[in-house]
């Protein structure tokens, strides 16, 4: 199939940026979306032109490096699929595809489709952990965890930190991402001692970055390639309120 791509090109953070149009020819349906871009880039490179910058590493939907807006949707239209796992059989000959970076104030563009998501790291650093010094752990079976709880914790823990939730949100809120970590750790017995301190710190960090507030639109969970449920936001809010009374240094 042959496609027309309208791709956001931006030399750097200070550049205004603009769309440029490229032809993607002889695209096979077995190609992934990024392989289709690879082929376009290969052509650009051979001509001495700068290829389209985009991020990817695992190309298996697990590292969270990839991600761009495809026809206005983060990671494209296919549910539960990262950009790297989107395949060209989802498109048809003659399609025009608009490709842009994730748009959010907290994710400034670095170049073309590459954005800075380091705010996510800072949120985790603010408290998204259980303090467990190496070598200090009790036997793993000393603390049983009910399977249902372990499974729910796991579901929340599958977040890949891609940022699609933020990009899809009209307010660019990072509640789904933050709530996922709070829920993962807060459901486990190991996570109890720091539970309220954690939510307090992570929410303040989130607020101090350029993210907006949750307006209960629910776009995030639809865009999320891991289907992280809105429940994590409810859990975070509940814990946050409780935290105002419990477990803080006064």
């Amino acid at each position, binding site marked *: 199939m042959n496609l027309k791509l309208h791709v956001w090109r931006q030399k750097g953070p200070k550049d205004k940026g603009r769309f440029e149009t490229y032809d993607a020819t002889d695209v096979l349906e077995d190609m992934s979306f990024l392989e289709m871009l690879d082929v376009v880039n290969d052509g650009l490179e051979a001509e001495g032109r700068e290829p389209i910058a985009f991020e990817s590493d695992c190309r298996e939907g697990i590292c969270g490096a990839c991600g761009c807006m495809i026809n206005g949707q983060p990671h494209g239209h296919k549910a539960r699929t990262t950009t790297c796992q989107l395949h060209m059989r989802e498109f048809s000959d003659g399609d025009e595809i608009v490709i842009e970076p994730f748009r959010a104030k907290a994710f400034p563009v670095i170049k073309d489709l590459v954005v800075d998501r380091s705010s996510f790291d800072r949120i985790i650093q603010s408290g998204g952990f259980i303090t467990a010094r190496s070598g200090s752990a009790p036997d793993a079976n000393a603390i049983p965890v009910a399977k249902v709880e372990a499974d729910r914790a796991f579901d929340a823990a599958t977040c890949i930190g891609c940022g699609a939730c933020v990009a899809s949100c009209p307010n660019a809120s990072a509640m789904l991402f933050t709530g996922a970590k709070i829920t993962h750790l807060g459901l486990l017995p190991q*996570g109890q001692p720091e539970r309220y301190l954690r939510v307090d710190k992570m929410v303040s960090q989130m607020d101090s970055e350029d993210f907006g507030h949750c307006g209960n639109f629910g776009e995030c969970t639809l865009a999320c390639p891991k289907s992280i449920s809105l429940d994590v936001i409810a859990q975070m809010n509940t814990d946050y309120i409780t935290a105002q009374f419990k477990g803080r240094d006064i």
Partner: protein
Amino acid sequence: MSIELKSNAPTGPIDSAWSRHKFDIKVVNPANKRKYTVIVVGTGLAGASAAATLGELGYNVQNFCFQDSPRRAHSIAAQGGINAAKNYQNDGDSVYRLFYDTVKGGDFRSRESNVYRLAELSVNIIDQAAAQGVPFAREYGGLLANRSFGGSLVSRTFYARGQTGQQLLLGAYSGHAAQVAAGNITMFPRHEMLDLVTIDGHARGIITRDLISGEIKSYAADAVILATGGYGNVFYLSTNAMGSNVTAAWRAAKRGALFANPCYTQIHPTCIPVSGDHQSKLTLMSESLRNDGRVWVPKDAKDCWNNDKAAVGRHPSQIPDEDRDYYLERRYPTFGNLVPRDVASRAAKLSCDEGRGVAFNGRGVYLDFKEAIGRLGQEEVAARYGNLFEMYERITGANPYTEPMRIYPAIHYTMGGLWVDYNLQSNTPGLFVLGEANFSDHGANRLGASALMQGLADGYFVIPYTLGHYLAEVGPRKNDAESSEFKGTEETVKGRVNKLLNVKGKRSVDSFHRELGHLMWEKCGMARTKEGLEEALERIPAIRDEFWNNVSVPGDGADLNQSLEKAGRVADFLEFAELKVGDALHREESCGGHFRLEHQTEEGEAKRNDDDFAYVAAWQFNGVDKKPTLHKEPLEFDHVKPSQRSYK
């Protein structure tokens, strides 16, 4: 120059060796730890666990990775699980059994002392991870669940659905995040190490390129730890992440660190086959699928669907049992579909070489769940493998519930790496190497679920002790990134970057990578011959030459330039490949993942030559276009007696 390779492993009873060693080595006074700066390159399981632990101990850690966040290291992609000799299932597992299995699985090409320690530490890893909140699979009673993995006779594999690597890495990353917050780790994401700096023979720092600003800068430290992963991408197509590379290890090798057993590469039998020339990487389908799936090819070459569009013969679901060759069950009646990775991979290749392969270019075999669906019901099959089936369908567009999967072997893991002693220190003092980047524990073949174990054992439990010994011995020194050694190396790096930018040729970087990878796969892949390897040795320098004369690296060095990043990595692969092929050529035997067609038993299995090759081949770099020098570390087996593996 002659280098004596001392393993520095303690002598005496193996089961108390590590405890005795920990007592015998020096300890840094807690008040002095702050005075030491330690560079850790890599944030995978090995790097993140090392950085976090050293941070906790109070060292001043500087940690580097090329991704935008430490959480994205390639370890995140590991699926199946992690081994530990917990014996929670009471099925007869023990530290000794895990040790035994690992030495045997490595086809008697690993160092017994290291492997024993690995087995011993395996139990602590699970405790550590559970304490961090890693959501391992559990039984209804709340205890941890296990499964048997990769043909092991005991159930010792811990897992978190099909995402064990992700969960373990996020666990290590969270501990790491805590240390960043505490100010003990300074994190440098989007920084690529481009050289190692040595002063008076000791590793004293690195040169990096900031991938956003392009700045090339020196970082000085008291010790350098490389945890930079494996070199599987020398084959271009592999299950490794796109960015996985040999650069850090290779630049260290060029500065004097020995590179051990580069020819040992693991090929994973169940990956999604190549679908065309555009293919950028290969996707692993978990080994667990072979527990219920049956592997076959059509008996009649006419029935092989090489490519859907040119389909001839019968659709696989229309081929009756009598016209199918379940070749693993036929050749290995005892182990059947569960033979080890290397055996399963070679058998698939053999069937395809006979012209009975399916999928693109006839490079695929069927993995069939019809019998399992009949036996267990579709629901149970979905419960066991649903997420894998979904992934398969997303990538191939085919539904494995109604037609067999198509799979083919792919490069997966590299057992070779920088040579290290028992302390995980290379022959360059002050340079330590952890995880897949070192050669130490898996011999010629790695058992499933053992890489995660090794990375975390190295990072959480070995390096905190052995690094301290080195630092206590050398004492505090002045770290001066302005010294002439640093400035000189910085200039070399800048020169190299400029050279890449100024070739201004006509071919894309990937086109060279693809060409090299194809050659490596054909000549130094699953089955190797003297002629093939010699041919590769002739062609690699020619490709390298063409690269330096005709590569196109657009843009400049002063901002994010992904072509430049790739070009630097490919340039290193083009040098390293020659060493790898040379190693394969010199090793006149077959062992584990290294299969020389000249050396096989009558049944077509790998035939080791213990008399002449029971050693680690550690190579010293002497210059591009110059022959490397071979140093041998003899391997002795006091506990596990070398035997011929048999899976009949």
